[in-house]
C-alpha cells in the first residue's frame, strides 16, 4: 500500500499533463457543435450547422487545397535533396563540411519572422509573385534541417559492409542505393517527410509574409479570419483540419507504426 501511493500520485500527475495536452484540441472540436452564434464551451445544444455553413465560404476549401499542394511539394523536394545532402555529410570528407552543416542547420536558429521578412523583400526584388512555388521554396528552407537531422541519425549506425557486398557482387551504385541503402534508412527518410509535410502544412509565420489575396494558405486564412470574427465557423474549419490530421496519422500508423517512425528520431 505504501509503495502504491507514490505510484498512484505519479500516474495522476501524468494524467493531468495528458489532459493539458488534449484540452485545447478537445475544446475546439466540441465547440464547433454549438447552436449559438458565438463560440462557447461547453457547447449549448448540438448542431452540424457550422459545417454546412462552410459551403458559403469556399475560400476555406481553396486554402485547404493550396496548403495540401504546398505541403506535398515541400515534403517531396526537401526529403529528396535533404537525403542526398545527408549522405554527403555522413560519408564523405570534404572542405567546408562544418560550415555547410551549420548553414543547413541554421534555419532552426533564425527566427521564422526574420526569414519571412527577408524572403518577402527578396521575392519582391526578383519579381517572384505569391505562388505555390514561392511558398514551397520558403518551406524547403524550414524543413531541410529536420529532414537532415533524421536521415543523418539513421545513416550514422549504418553497417556499410552490406553495401560493399552488393558492390562486390556487381550491383551498380544506383542499384545499391535503391535496393540496399534506401530500405535501411527508410524510417529516417519517412519520418523526415512526415515532419516536412506537417511543418509546411502548419506554417503561419513565413506564409503570412508571402501570401497575396488569391494565394492564401489555410493557417493564414484562419489567422486573419479570427482577427476580425469570433464565430464558430473557425472551430468547424479547425475540426476538419484536426480530423484530416488524425486520419492521415492513422493511415501512416497502419502502414508503418508511428511509434516506430518517431522513436527512430532519437
Amino acid at each position, binding site marked *: 500500500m505504501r509503495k502504491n501511493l507514490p505510484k498512484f500520485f*505519479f500516474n495522476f500527475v501524468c494524467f493531468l499533463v495528458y489532459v493539458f495536452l488534449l484540452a485545447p484540441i478537445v475544446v475546439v472540436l466540441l465547440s464547433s457543435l454549438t447552436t449559438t452564434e458565438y463560440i462557447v*464551451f461547453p457547447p449549448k445544444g448540438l448542431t452540424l450547422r457550422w459545417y454546412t455553413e462552410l459551403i458559403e465560404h469556399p475560400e476555406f476549401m481553396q486554402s485547404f487545397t493550396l496548403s495540401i499542394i504546398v505541403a506535398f511539394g515541400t515534403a517531396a523536394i526537401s526529403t529528396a535533396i535533404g537525403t542526398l545532402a545527408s549522405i554527403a555529410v555522413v560519408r564523405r570528407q570534404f572542405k567546408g563540411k562544418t560550415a555547410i552543416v551549420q548553414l543547413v542547420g541554421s534555419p532552426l536558429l533564425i527566427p*521564422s519572422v526574420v526569414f519571412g521578412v527577408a524572403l518577402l523583400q527578396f521575392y519582391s526584388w526578383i519579381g517572384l509573385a505569391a505562388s505555390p512555388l514561392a511558398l514551397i521554396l520558403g518551406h524547403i528552407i524550414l524543413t531541410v534541417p529536420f529532414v537532415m537531422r533524421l536521415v543523418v541519425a539513421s545513416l550514422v549506425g549504418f553497417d556499410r559492409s552490406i553495401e560493399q557486398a552488393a558492390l562486390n557482387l556487381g550491383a551498380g551504385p544506383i542499384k545499391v542505393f535503391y535496393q540496399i541503402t534506401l530500405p535501411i534508412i527508410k524510417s529516417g527518410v519517412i519520418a523526415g517527410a512526415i515532419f516536412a509535410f506537417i511543418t509546411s502544412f502548419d506554417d503561419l509565420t513565413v506564409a503570412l509574409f508571402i501570401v497575396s489575396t488569391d494565394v492564401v494558405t489555410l493557417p493564414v486564412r484562419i489567422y486573419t479570419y479570427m482577427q476580425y470574427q469570433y464565430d464558430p465557423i473557425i472551430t468547424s474549419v479547425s475540426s476538419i483540419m484536426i480530423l484530416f490530421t488524425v486520419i492521415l496519422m492513422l493511415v501512416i500508423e497502419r502502414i508503418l507504426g508511428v511509434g516506430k517512425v518517431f522513436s527512430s528520431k532519437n
Partner: protein
Amino acid sequence: MQAGIGTEHDLLLQQKKKNLNRKRVDTWLLLIPTLGIFIFFFLLPLFFLFITSFKTFDASTGIGNEWTLQNYIKFMSDPFYLGVVWRTVKIALLTTLITIIISYPVAFQISRSKGRARNYLTLLVLSPLLISMVIRCYGWVILLNNNGVVNNTLLKLGWIDQPLTLLYTELGVVIGMVHVLFPYMVLSIMGSLEKIDHSVIRASQNLGASSFRTFFSILLPLTLPGVFAGSVMVFSLSVSSFVTPAILGGPQVKVMSYLTYEQVAVMLNWPYGGAIGFLLILIATITIIAYSKILARSEKGVAIQ
C-alpha cells in the same frame, strides 16, 4: 622487374586518385541542390535584409537611400524596446522551466511502458506537434477567455470572485508556449532515459534507496544531457516563436518577433523591422551559445560520474 612493380604501383595509385576525384565530383552533386537553394533563398535574402537594416526610412518607398546606424541605436537606447527584449527572454525561460517539470514524468512513464500502450502514449504526446499550431492556440483562446472554461470553473469552485485576465497576458503566452514545445522536451528526455540500464535503478532500490533518492542520485544525473538538449531546443524555439505570442498575446504582450512583424507589415518601416530582426537573431544566438557552453561543461561533469 623492378620497373614492372613500379608501374603496377603507379597504376594503382592512379586508379585511387581517379576514384577520389570521382568521389569528390559526386560529393558536390549530392550537395548542390540543398546548397543552391540555401544560398539563393536563405543566405541572399538575409544578407539583403541586413543591408536594409542600415538604411534610413522613407515614408513613400519604405527604404531610403542614406546609410545610418540609427535603427540599432534607437532600439537599444529606448527603455520600451529594452523591456520587450527582457519580456521575450523571460517568457522563454519560464517556458523552458515549466516544460522540463511537466515533461519529465511523462517521458519516464512512456519509457517504462511497452508495446501498444507505448505507441498510443507516444502518439498522444506527439499529437500537439501534428495538429496545427494556429488551431491549438485558438483552443487556448477559447479556454483562457474571460468567460472561458478556466475562469468559469474557478468561479464555480469559488476560488476567485472575478474572472482572471489570462488571455493577452504573459501568463497566457507561457501556457500556450509550453503546450506547443512540450513534445520536443519529452522526446529529448526519452532519448536519454532509454539509454539507462534499468538494473542500475533496481540495484539502487534493492540497496534500500527511496524512490525520491533513486530519482535525484541516479535517474536525474544520468538524464541531464537529455534535459539540457531539450532545454536549448525549447528555449531557442520559444525566443523566436511568433504564432503563439501573436495569437495569445497580441499587441498587448509584444515580444521581439511580434515587433519585427509589426514594423514591417503595419508600419512598413523595413529598415527598422530588419534591425529588430537582426537583434533578435543576435540575442537568440548569444543565449544559445552561452547556454550550450554551460551545458557542455556540466555534461562533462555528468560523464565523469
